[in-house]
């Protein structure tokens, strides 16, 4: 019994459950991870990872601008990602060729402005803390008064995805089929982009503008390796997202007792590293089952398949 409690004490360093900042981090981090993972499933299958990353970069401009004028960075992140999403839509984010160039140019300009804002902010406050917070996030400095804002914004992003669930799946398979069936494909795309902008702006606060892509697509990509059913993929992604975030918070809290400075390592480092590890494991697992599946298929084909011998290889498409 004492062994168990000693182990628990070693895992949860003293004060973990009673710490105010930890509670806020667990709550907000959990909400943001859930929203990002759910929204991220569609980011991955729609091939919009670049757009997701771009929104994070644009968020940097908004967050640093908000910091400069003394507002909470959250509002800067939200405003700039949503406006950024609208600009990308106008520039033709849906066209694979058009979007890379146009988005890249807009991004460059946005990050350039962010560099200026962060420089001005650093000069003004005589510290680089804000730069680190904007770029790499910090879950332990979130004000508890903002919790309702996170919950409402997160819920609205989830509501959009829920509303668009089936048309999104259908237009991912074929925009032509969706259009023929009367789905307003462009409006669905715009609605989804809005949900993505909200998800990214929330994770800009917790994990940082630069790293927001990791929590958007990491858990989703891992889940898609593990399951082939849409609802299950979303559930697994959400589970992975929340789990890595909470584990990251715990490790960051514990790291206050670690070298070199005994000041605590960044939460974002732990979360992003865990995302990476989970993805590697999921990929390995899917490769193993993939090989097994291929063997089974081969065995099933082997008998009586002489019809195809000496002909063109089958099933190329």
């Amino acid at each position: 019994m004492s062994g168990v409690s000693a182990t628990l004490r070693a895992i949860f360093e003293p004060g973990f459950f009673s710490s105010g900042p930890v509670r806020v981090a667990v709550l907000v981090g959990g909400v943001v991870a859930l929203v990002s993972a759910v929204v991220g499933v569609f980011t991955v299958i729609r091939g919009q990872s670049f757009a997701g990353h771009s929104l994070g970069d644009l968020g940097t401009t908004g967050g640093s601008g908000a910091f400069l004028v003394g507002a909470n960075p959250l509002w800067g992140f939200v405003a700039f990602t949503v406006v950024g999403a609208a600009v990308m839509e106008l520039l033709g984010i849906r066209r694979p060729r058009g979007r890379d160039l146009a988005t890249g140019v807009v991004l460059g300009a946005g990050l350039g402005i962010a560099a200026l804002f962060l420089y001005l902010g650093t000069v003004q406050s005589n510290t680089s803390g804000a730069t680190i917070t904007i770029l790499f996030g910090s879950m332990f400095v979130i004000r508890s008064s903002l919790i309702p804002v996170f919950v409402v914004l997160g819920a609205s992003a989830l509501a959009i995805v829920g509303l668009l669930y089936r048309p999104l799946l259908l237009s991912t398979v074929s925009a032509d089929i969706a259009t023929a069936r009367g789905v307003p494909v462009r409006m669905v795309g715009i609605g989804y982009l809005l949900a993505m902008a909200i998800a990214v702006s929330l994770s800009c606060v917790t994990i940082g503008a630069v790293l927001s892509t990791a929590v958007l697509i990491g858990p989703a990509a891992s889940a898609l390796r593990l399951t082939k059913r849409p609802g299950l993929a979303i559930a697994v992604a959400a589970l992975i997202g929340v789990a890595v975030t909470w584990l990251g918070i715990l490790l960051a809290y514990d790291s206050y007792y670690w070298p070199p400075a005994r000041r605590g390592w960044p939460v974002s480092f732990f979360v992003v590293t865990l995302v990476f590890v989970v993805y590697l494991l999921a990929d390995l697992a899917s490769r193993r089952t993939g090989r097994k599946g291929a063997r089974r298929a081969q065995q099933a084909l082997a008998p009586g398949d002489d019809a195809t011998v000496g002909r063109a290889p089958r099933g190329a498409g």
Partner: protein
Amino acid sequence: MIDVSPVSGSGEEILALEGVSLWLSGREILHEVGFSLHAGELTGLIGSNGAGKTTIFRVILGLEAPSAGSVLFAGRPRSRRNGFIGYVPQSVAVDPDVPLRTRDLVGLGIDGDRFGIPLRQRGRRQLVDDMLEAVGARAFADSRVGNLSGGELQRTLIAHALISRPRLLLLDEPLANLDIRSEQEVVALLARIAEQQRIAVLIAAHEMNPLLPVMDRVVYVAAGRAASGSTEEVVREDVLSALYGHHVDVLHLKDRILVVAGKDEGHHPDPGKDQAVVPRGRR
């Protein structure tokens, strides 16, 4: 439009195009195209790439409004929704990452255009299972759509299109990228669907030979013009030469037909180029 006496229709008229012309950015894409589709019949929409086949589909689907002429569904103008039509587009490619099994994609044929999260409906699974059975897709019902072979994906898309019980099934180049065995299986499946479900099936293809055994009617398209009728009525040197505006030879080789550019005084490019290639070897 080149007039060829219509085949005596076996079923009721499902769709009729009458003198449909379409201008897009100053170019005439379709010129007075007219034909009709009937229940229980399989019609081939034959022509080389760029002849206007996909544009004709877009007009039928209501994605392009004709500049002149009319599109009639069972004798009436189009109603707002397309529930009437099942559609299988050309070259659908699904990434293996997409979390959809064959049965999920077929299920989206029921309600994929609706908003909101789906509730569990009784009888839905049975409906999907029946449709998978009907197209011979039970064996890969639980496979990822992104891992299906070309023939399997084509069957899945056909089931997706059919499950909403359309009166008209449109397929754009369904035989492209299929190996010969899958090609024959898909053709046989489509013929069976037309006959058993009493729906009109319209298949766009640049290669007519795989369809010859099952085609009730042909609509031959060249340079935005169309001629329709039975194969014997349409695939003839005089009709096709008039259609192409250039002499073409129609060669019968065993049970296959080759349409090739004939000797002509003109300097036209080979209009029937796609048809000139000898079909892939078959037994």
